[in-house]
């Protein structure tokens, strides 16, 4: 930005974000996160799964990771915020996805912490044995410690709990206290891995016969390779840390995506080289294959390898592993705390998660609960590979969500963001990534660790339950438009109800007439709603100042409703958008009908009746009746296009309710395909006629029906089965009528995309007065439609 421009836009008291990190810095952040505890703890376990094909597993993981890394490069460059994946899912996916992303992220980071705590414990036991503090007891899993005999698994779990408690305390004191140590550890562990690789390569090239240890390459077949891929996937997730630094990076649009790719370029070959030297340079003393030897050593596999060919191998590897697992445990304790803290602040979890300690300024309750999760999983999940698999499954699902989110974010906000990188072959590469990640999660569950699958399934089920019964309600409390005045509302929510939003005195008569006729056919409650709107810049509390303005129109409408024999319930809400207030009222009172006016012009060209009504139709599961401003009721000649015969009863009933009491004529037009046989057409007509049998209508052409006992002519109806194009047929017939009453039930998005919305085309072409009716569907259908609508819709512009 130029200085001139900056001075023009910046207020006098302003500060710029400190952007200190360059490309090298953030690349190293990513490398440090990936060349961490994973390589020390997981290499041996994964070698036991894949055999020498561990090298193939690491390569394939590199490809899978690259696909998601592209997505991270794109989103990290455009939305460089500390929230990373969780934030993007909040932006890009509807409903409970953000909650589940946070819930999974919390678990994934916490269980990764459990993995590193257990890994630390295993390496500490080895260290204690090396320095003679711990003595072996022959013939079992027992060790001597200070004169006590103790079971090795118990000792390891105890040490894991102890180190987890230590890091909970360190994080409580403040993460900055470990910053310098973290930098030293990073440099140290990369150096140790470097020495390990060079030593191993020297052994292999000194004795090329050792390459024979790669035969057979995949003793456990593809299943073993895929299992190892799933187990070690967590090792490559460090690129997530790069995008988390976004707010402190110089030129983030260029540097973040570059760092993501450069970090992978460094890390993937290092993992492959580690696998190569582990398999090639190790000589199993018990005569087994080197991969079996490593697999049997489990989380200590790398140590056992280093003992054989690396100078000071035991000491260096133990030091490297202890510091790596400690730094990783520190990072995951911090990150899991941060996720749960953010969820507390976002009202997804109880407020106590968002509490900050007055002295240390750390989110101490989130920390304690995250620590409890880390310790609980370390203790409860029996084997370390189950712990790793549980964290892996959760990260795979989380990355899957991010891959979906990138598709929606590009569609909804694409041209409004400054991208530094755009994923190629979009959206196919993200979709392929999703499929591969789901496949890996399934392989982990089925072939590697059913225990991990069950644990993660239980965690997800708990998350869904919490969201359904708790978080979704808290989210709604946050978003709902407040009610300012509520009068006479002693309603039974189970009872039938009609909501009439009132804003224009000129249209209330028609709205009340329709409402009364609906309530005549189905007795229930009438709710009159007036919405006070305030601009986005102002808090909704400002709306209280305008209650007095709302009174006259609401009182006048209530008087008119009483004159029509109804007992109205009145409600005043305040919000930034009228549609939100109406939708909130429909949801709170479970309204069956919304009857509203429309001035007759859509300011938003993408909608039939303007974005307000369009949003109400889409987002509230109620029957919505919309009366255009030119409607005069009651009408004498009404044309009713019927899309589905099963809607005939409701549509004809509605038409009857807005028709003159005497001598009205209602024509139901059902346009069918020309391919329908005469017999099929007759069946459709019979079905429609059957649906009208309960209504007080008389079949026949014209307006003068048979007179009743009071001398009034009965309302007549006719059913026409037409063939051809729906739009011109209805537009052509509408010229002879006083009113067109048309269903606006939504077509599938594919049909709308290809053919355009029929309702839209008819509504914009007819000249006669128009009433639009949107019939509500079943709850499941509505929820499914809401979900897909989210992906289809683009965003409205925010108020400047």
């Amino acid at each position, binding site marked *: *930005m130029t200085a*001139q*421009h*900056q001075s023009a*836009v*910046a*207020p006098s*008291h*302003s500060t*710029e*974000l400190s*952007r200190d990190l360059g490309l090298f810095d953030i690349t190293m952040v990513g490398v440090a996160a990936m060349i961490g505890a994973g390589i020390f703890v997981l290499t041996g376990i994964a070698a036991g799964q894949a055999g020498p*094909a561990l090298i*193939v597993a690491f*390569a394939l993981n*590199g*490809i899978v990771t690259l696909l998601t890394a592209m997505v991270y*490069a794109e989103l990290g460059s*455009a*939305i*460089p*915020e500390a929230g990373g994946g969780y934030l993007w899912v*909040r*932006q890009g996916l509807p409903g409970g996805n*953000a909650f589940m992303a946070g819930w999974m992220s919390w678990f994934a980071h916490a269980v990764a912490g459990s993995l590193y705590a257990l890994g630390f414990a295993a390496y500490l036991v080895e260290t204690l044995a090396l320095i003679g503090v711990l003595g072996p007891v022959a013939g079992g899993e027992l060790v001597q410690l200070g004169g006590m005999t103790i079971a090795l698994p118990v000792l390891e779990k105890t040490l894991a709990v102890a180190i987890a408690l230590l890091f909970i305390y360190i994080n409580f004191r403040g993460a900055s206290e470990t910053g310098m140590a973290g930098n030293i550890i990073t440099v140290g562990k990369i150096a140790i891995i470097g020495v390990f690789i060079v030593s191993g390569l020297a052994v292999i090239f000194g004795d090329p016969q050792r*390459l*024979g240890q*790669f*035969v057979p*390459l*995949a003793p456990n077949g593809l299943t073993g390779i895929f299992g190892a891929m799933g187990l070690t996937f967590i090792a490559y997730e460090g690129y997530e840390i790069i995008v988390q630094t976004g707010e402190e990076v110089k030129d*983030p*649009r*260029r540097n973040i*995506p*570059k760092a993501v790719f*450069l970090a*992978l*370029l460094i890390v*993937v*070959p290092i993992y*492959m080289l580690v696998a190569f030297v582990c398999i090639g340079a190790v000589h199993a003393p018990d005569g087994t294959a080197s991969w079996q030897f490593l697999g049997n050593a489990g989380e200590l596999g790398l140590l056992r390898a280093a003992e054989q060919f690396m100078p000071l191998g035991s000491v260096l590897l133990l030091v490297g592993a202890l510091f790596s697992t400690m730094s990783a445990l520190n990072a995951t304790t911090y990150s899991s705390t941060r996720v749960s803290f953010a969820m507390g602040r976002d009202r997804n979890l109880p407020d106590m998660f968002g509490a900050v300690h007055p002295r240390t300024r750390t989110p101490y309750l989130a920390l304690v609960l995250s620590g409890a999760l880390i310790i609980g999983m370390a203790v409860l999940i029996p084997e370390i590979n189950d712990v790793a698999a549980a964290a892996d499954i959760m990260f795979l699902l989380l990355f899957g969500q991010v891959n979906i989110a990138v598709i929606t974010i590009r569609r909804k*906000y694409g*041209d*409004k*963001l*400054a*991208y*530094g*990188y*755009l*994923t*190629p*072959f*979009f959206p196919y590469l993200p979709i392929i990534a999703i499929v591969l990640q789901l496949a890996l999660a399934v392989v982990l569950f089925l072939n590697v660790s059913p225990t991990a699958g069950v644990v993660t399934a239980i965690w997800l089920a708990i998350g869904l339950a919490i969201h359904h019964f708790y978080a979704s309600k808290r989210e709604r409390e946050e978003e709902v438009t407040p009610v300012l005045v509520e009068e006479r509302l002693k309603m039974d929510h189970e009872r039938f109800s009609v909501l009439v939003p009132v804003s224009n005195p000129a249209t209330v008569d028609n709205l009340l007439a329709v409402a009364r006729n609906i309530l005549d056919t189905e007795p229930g409650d009438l709710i009159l709603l007036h919405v006070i709107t305030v601009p*986005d810049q102002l808090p909704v509390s400002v709306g209280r100042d305008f209650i007095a303005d709302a009174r006259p129109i609401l009182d006048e409408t209530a008087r008119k409703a009483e004159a029509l024999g109804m007992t109205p319930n009145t409600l005043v809400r305040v919000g930034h958008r009228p549609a939100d207030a109406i939708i909130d009222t429909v949801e709170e009172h479970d309204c069956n009908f919304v009857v509203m006016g429309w001035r007759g012009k859509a300011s938003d060209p993408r909608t039939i009746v303007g974005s307000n009504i369009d949003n109400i139709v889409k987002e509230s599961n109620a029957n919505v009746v919309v009366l255009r401003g030119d409607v005069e009721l009651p009408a004498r000649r009404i044309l009713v296009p019927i899309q589905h015969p099963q809607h005939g009863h409701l549509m004809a009933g509605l038409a009857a309710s807005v028709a003159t009491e005497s001598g009205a004529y209602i024509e139901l037009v059902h346009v069918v395909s020309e391919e329908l046989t005469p017999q099929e057409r007759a069946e459709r007509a019979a079905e429609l006629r059957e649906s009208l049998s309960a209504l007080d209508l008389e079949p026949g052409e014209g307006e003068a029906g048979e007179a009743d006992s009071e001398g009034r002519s009965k309302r007549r109806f006719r059913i026409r089965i037409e063939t051809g194009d729906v739009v011109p047929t209805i537009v052509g017939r509408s010229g002879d009528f006083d009113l067109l009453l048309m269903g606006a039930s939504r077509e599938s998005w594919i049909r709308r995309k290809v053919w355009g919305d029929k309702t839209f085309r008819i509504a914009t072409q007819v000249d006669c007065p128009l009433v639009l009716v949107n019939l509500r569907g079943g709850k499941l259908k509505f929820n499914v439609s809401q979900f897909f609508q989210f992906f289809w819709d683009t*965003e409205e*512009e*925010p*108020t400047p």
Partner: protein
Amino acid sequence: MSLKNLQDAGVLLPKEEWGVHDLHTSVNKPRLLASLALGLASVVMMYLGSGSALTFVGAGLFLIFMVWITHISIRAINVQSAQFRQEREAAHLEDAPLPGETTFDD
């Protein structure tokens, strides 16, 4: 979530710049396809080699693939950056603040 959230986060482009930028990737697609083909082929070679020399040739090719795809991606980032600048200049918006260059109130 909405545009307002992105606006509050300071990551939205200025309104006059909406729709100005091309959303087609600047990645060279034929080269990317070729590199991905090399990557997959190298993994297949590693696997089919069954521990023979072919496996190690495949591993070597995979390392070449990693270098190549990184080169393609970084080149695309540079092209994207230049293209972004050109699009701003064409729309006479080169002096407008970008997300990340804005200042924030105390």
